[in-house]
């Protein structure tokens, strides 16, 4: 009996052991066979670390190859508060290095959070100081930061980037995809202490750097344009202004200055209005500078000639509106050239009446009114050119003298560049070339537009416009550049009220080109409500300063084939 019981106990024990072994074996089978892939993945997750290798954002360079925008690696200081045993002590030593208030820093370091930014994008030297402290729970991450070595130079053209290194304005936005590059990744196997296992699993997919952009901007001309504009704004108490310098033969923009301006390195403290690129975003009624288009249309369609004499009163009534010249005068006999040179509204409107509204509309369109320039700049305006069937009875008169239509300063500059290029439009361009990650340069090609007017018409009109700066009746004598023949036109246009009917204030502008016989440069200057308001007394002077500097900088031939010596850089106006 005892033997039987003993055997029974042994059997029971054996069964239990078998059952236990079965459970263990089953579990092992489950882990090793059925669930092996998940377990392998979990194990790999603990050992394998994948790091994103940030791609360096490409630089933006001036035409001479110097950096206008460059990205550099900085150090971001972060904390893992749950690993910090003494937040007060850590804050005490970190605060002076990072220039942060100790109390605020201590608050950040206290808590159960696993990750919190302490200070982003610090100088590498600061990062080294923080690393040397070897504080538990404090770490460093590499983060690129955008720098603009020339400060406010061409700030509105370049734009700026946001916290995530994405372009938010200007060319930084337009060419964001090209500049950004492609981030890489590094896969490494690490031990429990986080150290790389040298012979462990490892693979690196290198980041591809972004392309560099080489701009058409000439740094010296850009600077001179900005200084001249700043001086004009201070001197004539203008609300602001813009200046553009274009090479009419290629459409390359050598300078695009705006005032007020800002320093993209100090973005947070800048005024948002100062970040606007007025040259392509703002529209204005061009006023008398637009008479060039009316004159071109009239000459091209043979409704008049430069020498045709007309009797011009100082007033002209069309429908309910009376148009008047800038100054009272008796009825005068004037040639069409004199009408343009003295900027007679009445004379120009009389020519436009012969031209007709459809023809005037067509030529305004051909010269680029109501059409974007192709620059693809963020926020670029196409301007306003109403169709003839929407014109009022008085519209022919107003549009002929540059009111009732709206253009950007760049559109106006493009129209004059077309004339300066013998009647052939060239698309304005800001990018001279791109340089890819392998260092290969890809030049952009000038984009030629259609022929707008005949070369003969362009030559005739150029001679008429030379009279504006050099003729007896010219309104733009102040724009004359000693040693050069300059063609151009003044424009003093009323500013429409915003949100109300009527006008308030003036936009003063001067657009012209030189040397008139072989144009190298077109300069457009627009001042917002200067005192005095007449363009001949304000914008024309700023035009002269910029044009003179630029011609000499480029070594353009002066009259008689002489090359004048290079210019000196000006100092910015004192505040």
């Amino acid at each position, binding site marked *: 009996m005892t033997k039987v019981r003993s055997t029974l106990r042994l059997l029971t024990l054996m069964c239990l052991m078998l059952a236990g072994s079965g459970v263990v074996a089953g579990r092992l089978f489950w882990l090793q066979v059925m669930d092996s892939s998940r377990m392998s993945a979990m194990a790999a997750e603990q050992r394998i670390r994948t790091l994103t290798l940030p791609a360096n954002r490409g630089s933006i360079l001036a035409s001479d190859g110097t*950096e206008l925008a460059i990205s*550099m690696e900085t150090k971001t200081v972060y904390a893992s508060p749950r690993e910090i045993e003494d937040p007060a002590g850590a804050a005490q030593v970190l605060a002076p290095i990072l220039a942060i208030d100790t109390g605020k820093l201590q608050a950040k370091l206290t808590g159960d959070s696993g990750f919190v930014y302490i200070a982003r994008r610090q100088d590498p030297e600061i990062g080294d100081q923080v690393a040397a402290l070897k504080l538990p729970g404090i770490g460093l991450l590499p983060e690129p930061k955008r720098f603009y070595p020339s400060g406010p130079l061409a700030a509105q053209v370049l734009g700026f980037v946001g916290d995530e290194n994405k372009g938010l304005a200007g060319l930084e936005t337009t060419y964001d995809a090209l500049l950004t590059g492609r981030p890489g990744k590094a896969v490494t196997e690490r031990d429990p202490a986080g150290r*790389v296992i040298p012979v462990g699993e490892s693979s690196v997919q290198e980041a591809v750097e972004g392309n560099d952009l080489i701009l058409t901007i000439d740094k010296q001309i850009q600077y001179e344009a900005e200084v001249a504009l700043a001086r004009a704004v201070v001197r004539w108490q203008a609300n602001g202004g813009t200046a553009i310098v274009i090479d009419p033969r290629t459409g390359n923009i050598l300078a695009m200055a705006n005032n007020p301006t800002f320093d993209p390195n100090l973005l947070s403290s800048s005024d948002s209005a100062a970040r606007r690129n007025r040259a392509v975003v703002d529209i204005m009624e061009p006023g008398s500078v637009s008479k060039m288009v009316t004159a071109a249309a009239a000459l091209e369609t043979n409704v008049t000639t430069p020498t045709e004499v007309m009797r011009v009163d100082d007033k002209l009534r069309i429908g309910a509106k009376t148009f008047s010249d800038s100054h009272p005068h008796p009825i005068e006999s004037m040639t069409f050239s004199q009408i343009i040179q003295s900027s007679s509204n009445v004379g120009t409107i009389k020519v436009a009446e012969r031209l007709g509204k459809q023809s005037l509309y067509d030529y305004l369109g051909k010269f680029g009114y109501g059409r974007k320039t192709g620059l693809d700049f963020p926020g670029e305006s196409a301007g306003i050119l109403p169709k003839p069937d929407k014109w009022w009875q008085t519209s022919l008169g107003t549009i002929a003298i540059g009111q009732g239509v709206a253009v950007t300063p760049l559109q106006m500059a493009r129209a004059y560049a077309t004339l300066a290029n013998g009647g052939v439009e060239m698309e304005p361009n800001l990018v001279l070339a791109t340089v890819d990650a392998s260092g290969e340069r890809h030049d952009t090609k000038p984009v030629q537009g259609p022929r707008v007017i005949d070369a003969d018409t362009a030559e005739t009109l150029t001679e008429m416009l030379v009279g504006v700066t050099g003729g007896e009746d010219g309104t733009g004598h102040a724009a004359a550049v000693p*040693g050069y023949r300059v063609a151009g036109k003044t424009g003093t246009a009323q500013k429409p009220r915003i949100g109300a009917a009527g006008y308030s204030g003036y936009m003063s502008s001067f657009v012209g080109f030189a040397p008139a016989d072989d144009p190298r440069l077109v300069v457009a200057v627009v001042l917002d409500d200067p005192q005095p308001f007449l363009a001949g007394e304000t914008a024309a*002077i700023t035009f*002269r300063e910029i044009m003179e500097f630029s011609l000499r900088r480029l070594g353009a031939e002066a009259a008689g084939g002489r090359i004048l010596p290079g210019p*000196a850089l*000006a100092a910015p106006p004192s505040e």
Partner: protein
Amino acid sequence: MAALPSPRDSGGTPHARREHAFPPTGPRTAVPGRPGLSVVPGAVPAPRPRPSGSAAAGYRSRFKASFKSNPARVTAALLVVFAVVFGLVLLNIYVAQNSFHLSDLQRRAAALQTEQRRLRYEVARAESPENVVEMGASLGLVAPGNQKFLEGPSVLVSERTPIEGEESSR
């Protein structure tokens, strides 16, 4: 029972050594022209029937026999194995060292790249027109006032006078 002569005893040919190392599994026939190797009937033990499908066991037994009779070979083989293992360990150490060196070089390359970018930035900042003007002013340079461009002793080509406001800022 007469044993087959060892290769050393016989000073025989490689063929004989092979025969010794790998005993025949069936009755030998006389080899013409090689009397020393003739088979004496009855001198060779009757061949043991080999278990079917046990080629591996046969090899093992042959190896054992070989190792017993050639301790030098065994030592040499062990040395070779040891050398291979040691070589692998050395190779591993070498690879690990190079791996550390590579990651060190990569760190240095990254640091130098960062430094190069910083220097490019410094150069660009130093070359900025604003900085050039400031430096010029600090060195006492001033832009000219009235500028006259002459050709020859008396022909005035061009003249430039500073505009109002320009003078004070220069």
